[in-house]
C-alpha cells in the first residue's frame, strides 16, 4: 500500500488510533472512578476492594497470556505437522 495514511479508512489513521487510545484510557479511568460513587457489593468481601475488578481482570489476562505462551513452546507445531507423518487419515 503506497497510499498516504490520510487516504486510508478513517479508523486506521494514526491520529484516530491515538484518539481511540485516549478514549480507552478515559473509559478505563471512568469505570474505576465510578467505584467511588457506586459501591460494588460483590458476593465476597474482596470484590468490594477498590478497583478489584480492574486489577483482577488485568492480571488474569496477563497470567493466561503467559501460560499460553509457555504452553505454546510445548504444543505448537508447524501447520503441516499431521500431514507429514501419515496418510490423509
Amino acid at each position, binding site marked *: 500500500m503506497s497510499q498516504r495514511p490520510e487516504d486510508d479508512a478513517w479508523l486506521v489513521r494514526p491520529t484516530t488510533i491515538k484518539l481511540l487510545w485516549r478514549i480507552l484510557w478515559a473509559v478505563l479511568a471512568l469505570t474505576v472512578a465510578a*467505584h467511588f460513587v457506586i459501591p460494588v*457489593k460483590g458476593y*465476597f468481601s474482596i470484590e468490594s476492594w477498590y478497583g*478489584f475488578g480492574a486489577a483482577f481482570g488485568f492480571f488474569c489476562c496477563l497470567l493466561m497470556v503467559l501460560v499460553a505462551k509457555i504452553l505454546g513452546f510445548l504444543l505448537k507445531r*508447524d501447520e503441516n505437522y499431521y500431514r507429514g507423518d501419515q496418510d490423509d487419515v
Partner: protein
Amino acid sequence: MFDLLPPALILLVGALLVGPLRGHWRSAAVLITPLITLWAVWQVPDGVSLTLPFLGYQIEPLEGSALRRLFATIFSLMAFVGGLYAFRHAKWYELAAGYAYAAGAIGVCFAGDLITLFLFWELMALFSTVIVWCGGTPGARAAGIRYAIMHLLGGVILKVGIEGVYVHTGSLDIQPMLATSFDTWMILIGILINAAAPPLSAWLADAYPESSPTGSVFLSAFTTKTAVLALILLFPGEPVLIWVGIYMIMYGIIYALLENDARRILAYSIVNQVGFMVCAIGIGTELALNGAAAHAFAHIVYKALLFMSAGVVVYRTGKSKCTDLGGLFRTMPLTTVCGIIGALSISSFPLTSGFTTKTMISQAAADGGLVTVYFLLAAASAGVFLHAGIKFPWFVFFQKDSGLRPKDAPWNMGIAMVIFAAICLILGIFPELLYQYLPYPVDYIPYKAGKVIFYLQLLLFSGLAFFLLLPLMKRTITISLDVDWLWRVLAFRIGKALYTRLSAAGSKLEAVVQQNLVNLTTFTRRHLGVGIGEESRGLFARTWQIGTTTLWIAVLLTIYMLVYYL
C-alpha cells in the same frame, strides 16, 4: 392427532424434501419447515404424550417440559436461521444433512426414554459427519472420519451404559441420576464425549473448522448443546461436572489464544462456553440449572452469529487464517458489526445476552459458597473477552491491512446475521423475555449497578491487557497439539515401528524356513532320491537283496517284542 406430530419428524420430512425439490420449492421447504417445527414444539404438552412399542420395549418419543421446549425452540430457530444463511450457497445434501442433524437434536429434546434418546443421538452423529465431509477438501474427509470414529465410540459407550441401567434397574426413564455405578459412569462419559469434555475435546476443534462456511454454522449449535440438555436431565448436581467444566473453560481459552485459524478460535471457544454450562450443571441448584439452560440458549445464538461472520469471510476470501486476514472492516461493515456483537455477547458484556445468562452461573456458584469456582469463572470471563471477544474481531477485521477487499455478505447471509445479532441485544436488554421460559422460576436481577461496574472493570481491563500484550500474541502459522496426538501420532508411530519390527522378524523367519526346506530337500534326495543308475539312487530307494531285507525285518520284530514285554 396432528397437534401431537413429533416436531423432530416434521424437520426430518423437511430434510427429505430438500433433495427431490428444485428451485423455489426447495427454498420454500428450507425456510418453512423449521417454522412449522417451531410451532409444533410449542404444541407439545408437559409429560409423556406418545408411547410406542419398539423391539419389545415401550418407548416414549414425545415428552414435554419447559426445559425440553426451550432447547427445542432454540434448535428450531437455529435450523431456520441456519437454513436462511445457507440455502443459496450450500449443496443440497449439506442442507438436507443439516436439517436431519437438527431433527436429531430436537428428537433428543423430547426423548422420554433412553432408547429414543440414543436413536436420535446416533442420527445426529451420522448427519453431522456428513456435514463435516461437505467441506469437500481432503482435510475435511480425514477430519470427518476421525469425527465419526469419536462419535461412534461415544455412542457405543452410551449404549453400554443404557443397557446396564436397564438390566440393573429395569427402567429406561430419563431421570436424574448420579455417576455412582459403572452403568451411570458409562452414560456420563458417553454424553461428555459429545460435550467435548476432556480428555476427548480435540474432535471439535479438529472437525468444525474443516467444514464449509455454511456447515460450521450448523455444527456449532447442536451436538454440544444436546449434550448439555442431556446432562441437565440426567446428571444435575453431579459434583464431578464442576471441575470438568472448569477444565473445559481453561482449555478453551489457552488453546484459542494459541490458535491461528479464525474458525478454530471459535471452535475452541465452544468448548470454553460449554464448560460454563457443564460447571453450572455440576453446581446443580435451580439457579445454576436455569443459568445453564439460559446460557445454552444465548450461546447457540451468539456462537452461530460468530460462525456466520467467520463463514462470510471464508466464503468471500477463501481464507480463514489470522495471518492471511486483517483490515476487512473497510469493505465488510455489516459482517464486522455482527461479528463484534457476537464477540461482545460471548464475552458477557453488559447489554448483551451473554451478560444476562452467564452471570446467573456466577451467582449460583457464589450462592453455593464455591469461592474458588466463583473466582475461576470471573477470571474465565476476562479470558473469554481476551481470546474470543477481542482476538477474533481484531485479527479478522482489523489488525494489519491484508490488502483483501472482499464484498460484504450476500443478502440472505446478511439477514441471518442481523436476526441473530438482534436476538443477542434483545436478550441482553430485556432478559425477562428469556427468563420466563426457563425451567425454574427466576428471581434473578442481572443489572445491579455494582455488578455492572465490576464486569466493566473486569472486561475493559482485559481489553487493555490484550492491546498491551499484543506483541506476545503475534500470530504464528502453527497448529497446537492436543490429546488426539496420542492416537494420531504416537499410536501411529508405535504401530509403524511394530510393523517394521514384525516384518523384519518375519523375513528372518522366512529365511530360516527356506534354509530348512533346502536342507530337507537335500536330505530326502540323498536318502530317497530316484536316480538313473543303481548307484545314484538314495539309500532307501535302492533295490535291496532279500537276505538283507529279512534280516532287517527280524531285527525290527525283535525290538517290537522287547518293547511289548517291557
